[in-house]
């Protein structure tokens, strides 16, 4: 099946710093999603981005499907950004199977 790799696995930031999280996938996909899991375990969808660039406040995401990667940018980080960030891809061809990466654990310190 499709492989989804995220980097870095762990990240510590000073409040106010910027960061870039990366997601690589091994095969063509129908779409890609980014999620944030808060410290209470709730998963929230941040972006649904099969290709191109989207922005939502301090967060933006870019997917280059032809090169099989996506990037999540966090600018002016805040302590509330802490948690785990996952990317998830829907395999192309057939059923809507959605595979997750192993995540990037982000800690933003004041």
């Amino acid at each position, binding site marked *: *099946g499709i492989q989804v790799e995220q980097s870095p696995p762990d990240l510590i930031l000073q409040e106010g710093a910027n960061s870039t999280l990366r997601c690589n996938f091994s095969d063509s996909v*129908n779409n890609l999603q980014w999620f944030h899991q808060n410290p209470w375990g*709730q998963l929230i*969808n941040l972006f649904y981005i099969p290709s191109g660039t989207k922005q939502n406040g301090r967060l933006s995401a870019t997917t280059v499907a032809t090169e099989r990667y996506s990037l999540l940018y966090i600018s002016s980080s805040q302590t509330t950004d802490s948690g785990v960030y*996952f990317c998830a891809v829907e395999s192309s061809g057939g*059923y*809507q199977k959605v595979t997750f990466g*192993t995540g990037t654990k982000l800690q933003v310190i004041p």
Partner: protein
Amino acid sequence: DVKVTQSSRYLVKRTGEKVFLECVQDMDHENMFWYRQDPGLGLRLIYFSYDVKMKEKGDIPEGYSVSREKKERFSLILESASTNQTSMYLCASSFRSSPLHFGNGTRLTVT
């Protein structure tokens, strides 16, 4: 707003018991998914369903089965619970090729 409800937040069962985890969504979504989450392993897909009575194996289906008799409900069944099935179980739903919406999760402990 989409609501995905998992029947229990915490569950403790004994080895060998038959365990049912229930998930209900209120948005008429075609797709429903069961994942388990373990430290360092991310979310791994157990089973998914793209329609009533239809199911597909995910990446780790061994030891699990599912049931989808109605569109809004997707049940995960552990036929004979084992300690290595202690985990956080997450249910999600979506329309075709649209964002996933997750429930709050069920933390299952098998003793």
